């Protein structure tokens, strides 16, 4: 084990590309992604884990990037909204968000999409209650939840029954 230090060199994969950088250990992952790498689709609302706008995938699991230190992502694979466009779930969600006008100001949208994509990929079509529960950690400051739940529900249906929905 290395001695406790204030700066550490980390080596990780971000959106499929290998990144090596020296970081201050106090820097959280969201600031690293935005400030060091320019992935500004990761938004910062509250920086204490309440709003969910900074949600990214860390080794395939949704996390709040304001509650993970950049140094803790050493050796991990990070996916931000910029790297998620190739996922089938994301294609469906983008179409349904457009159709249902589910992106209002857009601030919560990247994290809302990443969070919803995990649900869409679970195959079984969730109930609206389950969709709301899954998204409960993501705040929409426009309070546009109705349209968001509509869009996620439609994307889940389309994913579970490909070819039957043409949105």
């Amino acid at each position, binding site marked *: *084990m*290395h*001695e*406790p*230090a*204030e700066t*550490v060199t980390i080596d990780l994969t971000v959106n499929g590309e290998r990144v090596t950088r020296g970081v*201050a*250990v*106090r820097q*959280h992952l969201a*600031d690293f992604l935005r400030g060091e790498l320019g992935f500004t689709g990761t938004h910062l609302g*509250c*920086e*204490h*884990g309440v709003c*969910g706008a900074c*949600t990214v995938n860390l080794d395939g*699991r*949704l*996390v*709040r990037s*304001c*509650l*993970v*230190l950049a*140094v*803790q992502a*050493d050796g991990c694979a990070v996916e931000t909204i910029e790297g998620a466009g190739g996922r089938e779930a994301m294609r469906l969600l983008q179409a349904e968000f457009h159709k249902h006008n589910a992106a209002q100001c857009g601030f919560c949208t990247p994290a809302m999409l990443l*969070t919803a994509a*995990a649900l869409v990929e679970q195959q079984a079509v969730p109930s609206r209650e389950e969709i709301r*529960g*899954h998204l*409960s*950690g*993501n705040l929409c400051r426009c309070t546009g939840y109705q349209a968001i739940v509509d869009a996620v529900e439609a994307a889940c249906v389309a994913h579970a029954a490909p070819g039957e929905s043409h949105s």
Partner: protein
Amino acid sequence: MKAPPFKYARAETLDDALGVLVSHGDEARVIAGGQSLMPMMNMRVANPGVLVDINRLDALRGISLSGGVLRIGALTRHCEVLASQDVARAAPLLALAMPHVAHVAIRNRGTFGGSLALADPAAEIPAVCLALGARLHLQSPRGTRIVPAGEFFIDLYMTALEPDEILVAAEIDAAEGAERAAFDEMSRRHGDYAIVGTCVQATVSEGVFADVRIAQLGVGTTPKFAARAAGAIEGRRLESATIKMACDALMDDIDPSDDLVMSAATRRYLAGVQLGRVLARLAA
């Protein structure tokens, strides 16, 4: 909303982590999931000089059920506890409480041991462990000691953990089948910390309740074991008069205080209403 400067070390073994605690004393703090510590640091409520990261200690992770004992490693994530068939079978009260713990992204990161070690009085896991009489395994360079949950929570965010100790696991005696459990919680938004929450487990035989265990969250500076309320039910059938006696007795078990959300009197009232509802559900 940025953490102040600190030093960081990633432990590769438990001995590494204990070594940092020994050499840096009070200045050092363990980070597990970090889902409470990170916001506290970002808001500068917590200001550790040295952070020792135990996230890579796989030995502290996992759930096992053997010999009638459910063991949950301290580094087990909330999502893993939530999905565990062993937990559903051996600790139904915990299984009922877990869906109330946080939101998806927090559950993917937050840990069972971290919730216990933080000891937020409004958190679900400490109260459930208190109700179930969990045994907490604390390790230091001096060895391992086992502390019952009833002696672990000392005051607000204060536990029996010494500065050189790490919580490594919790053990709970597995349910044997005659137990009935119920959990309820009131919060401003599902997944948030509770305003008031209630845990009840009892063994029911021909309608008679025995080995009654009640704990509440959000009603004091620690999770509260409601021994008087439980005593009012012990050996009785859950009729409406018995439920009322338990709710009256509860008032001597809990000690809520005023806070930003509501007054102590309101919280006390809600705690009684909620216990009544949970018991009525068990009686049905």
